[in-house]
């Protein structure tokens, strides 16, 4: 493997671009904070903090999906992902960073008692409301803070342990016994992460962070829907980095066959997302009970109609028709296009999930959203680039690397 470029060097252009994006984002953030965030108008406040909330949550969950991808493929004894596994690993290093920002935003929202965002923060209203008092055990500030801390903390910690063990594969070749022990320890750590992931992203966290904005409404499918959204975006992000590095001449061992499988994940989970989207929608549409349809009322028949159905076109029709063909999943340009489209589509999805409930009467999508988005994209490029450069790109002595090299679809 003498000819393999193991070390990623951050190109100057990437630094400039990410800094520029962060700069634009910081300016938007600052203007937003002073004109809206600290404004005395409730609507402006809700607009600012809501926008910040869905962006932080979206990017944390998308980066966390990378670690989930590594863990589930590890648990499934997968070999094909080894040739590019340093990329999801690098993306998952964003979890502590974005997690801290999410934590700060959510804790600020709860601590400053913003009951226009989380209605259940209003103690008097909860006391008078039988539905909200019934949910008091789950929707209360103490539990919110503890569970949020635990969730972000353990994602970071368990993900860190998973990345730590991966470094062992850089050091020395493994014989059968040390290889088997390496795989076993990998399995245990991956299992721990996956279980915690199921207890948080797979169930409680989306209920707590986003669904509780509509404090009276509930849908048990909501978390799965959020998970599907973040996972398909996570796969798209991995695809984008893989293609970027391939274009720069790195990742010689990663071929079209690996891209094909990443493309399959993007295709399959787009359909999985639609399945959940539709299951949630149809049951509520069919039952037609006011306390349930309240969630869809202003989305399907109100100002969010356009975004709501655009969402379905971008996230379902496009991946279904464009990514269906084998040749499309092996085409770098097309996968890049679809990855960007899917990421944008699910960002819009998160937008309507949060802002559709906070600002029911008018769509707020504007400079603030795109400004904050550019802040997060810039951060992501900068830090993922750095953490890619901090480690070799190939897990040289991983027992399964051979499987990845000969991988063929």
């Amino acid at each position, binding site marked *: 493997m003498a000819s393999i470029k193991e070390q990623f060097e951050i190109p100057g252009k990437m630094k400039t671009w990410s800094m520029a994006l962060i700069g634009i984002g910081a300016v938007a953030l600052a203007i937003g904070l002073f004109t809206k965030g600290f404004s005395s108008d409730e609507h402006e406040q809700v607009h600012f903090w809501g926008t910040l909330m869905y962006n932080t949550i979206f990017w944390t969950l998308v980066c966390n999906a990378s670690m989930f991808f590594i863990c589930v493929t590890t648990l499934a004894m997968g070999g094909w992902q080894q040739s590019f596994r340093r990329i999801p690993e690098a993306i998952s290093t964003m979890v502590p960073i974005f997690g801290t920002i999410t934590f700060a935003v959510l804790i600020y929202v709860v601590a400053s008692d913003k009951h226009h965002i989380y209605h259940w923060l209003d103690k008097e209203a909860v006391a008078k409301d039988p539905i909200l008092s019934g949910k008091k055990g789950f929707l209360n500030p103490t539990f919110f803070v503890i569970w949020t801390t635990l969730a972000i903390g353990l994602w970071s910690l368990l993900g860190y342990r998973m990345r730590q063990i991966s470094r062992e594969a850089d050091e020395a070749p493994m014989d059968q016994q040390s290889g088997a022990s390496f795989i076993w320890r990998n399995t245990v750590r991956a299992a721990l992460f996956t279980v915690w992931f199921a207890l948080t992203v797979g169930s409680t966290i989306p209920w707590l962070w986003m669904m509780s904005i509509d404090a009276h409404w509930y849908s048990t499918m909501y978390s799965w829907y959020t998970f599907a959204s973040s996972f398909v975006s996570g796969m798209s992000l991995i695809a984008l980095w893989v293609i970027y590095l391939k274009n720069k001449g790195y990742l010689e061992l990663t071929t079209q066959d690996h891209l094909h499988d990443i493309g399959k994940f993007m295709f399959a989970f787009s359909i999985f997302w639609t399945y959940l989207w*539709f299951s949630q*929608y*149809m049951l509520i*549409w*069919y039952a*037609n009970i006011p306390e349930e349809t309240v969630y869809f009322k202003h989305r399907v028949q109100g100002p969010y109609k356009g975004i709501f159905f655009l969402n379905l076109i971008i996230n379902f029709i496009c991946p279904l028709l464009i990514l*269906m063909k*084998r040749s499309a999943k092996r085409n770098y340009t097309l996968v890049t296009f679809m990855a960007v489209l899917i990421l944008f589509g699910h960002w819009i999805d998160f937008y309507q999930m949060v802002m559709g409930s906070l600002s029911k009467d008018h769509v707020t999508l504007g400079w603030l959203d795109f400004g904050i988005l550019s802040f997060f994209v810039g951060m992501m490029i900068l830090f993922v680039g750095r953490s890619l450069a901090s480690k070799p790109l190939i897990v040289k002595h991983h027992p399964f690397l051979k499987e990845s090299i*000969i991988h*063929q679809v």
Partner: protein
Amino acid sequence: MAKKKFVVGCFDDEAVLFPAVKKVRTAGYKIKDVYTPFPVHGLDHALGMRETSLHTAGFIYGITGTSTALGSISWILAKDWPLNFGGKPHFALPAWIPITFELTVLFAAVGMVLTFCYLCQMAPFVKKHHFHARATDDLFVMVIECTDKTNAEDLKGFLASSGAVETDIQVAEDGWWLGRYDRDEVPFQKNQTVAA
């Protein structure tokens, strides 16, 4: 159905098979197929087979299913015999999606199975000639179709020199064959063992 003459070469090693396939193809022989006990990665590529169009057929069947379902349900429930189901609109699209999905899957699945059988010339009572019993066990069996110009004996030698552990010449039914093994040919008649 027409009987054809085939030269059969058996290989017991993938590493020998691939160069042999390449040599046979460059020499200009027409390989009918290589029968293997398990899927061999890259063999279809080495044989120069084109990508199957089965999935295109599947897509068309799926679309047919989608339009059949949507077309018939909407005609029945919105035009021909509108009924009031719990105050829902006659054109109640969300309620039809599950059926539409199921019919799409059904059409695609059944259609693709039948197309697959047709392409592989498989149907009830249609028989297939087995070139070598051990193709289901541990031999890679390469079958080359003879033309008027093929010198079968030469080809046998060529295959043996390319690493075939066993070679022979067989005359067999090609394509749709409604005969019976027990009457038309005695299966595994020869003592098919490999010397090596």
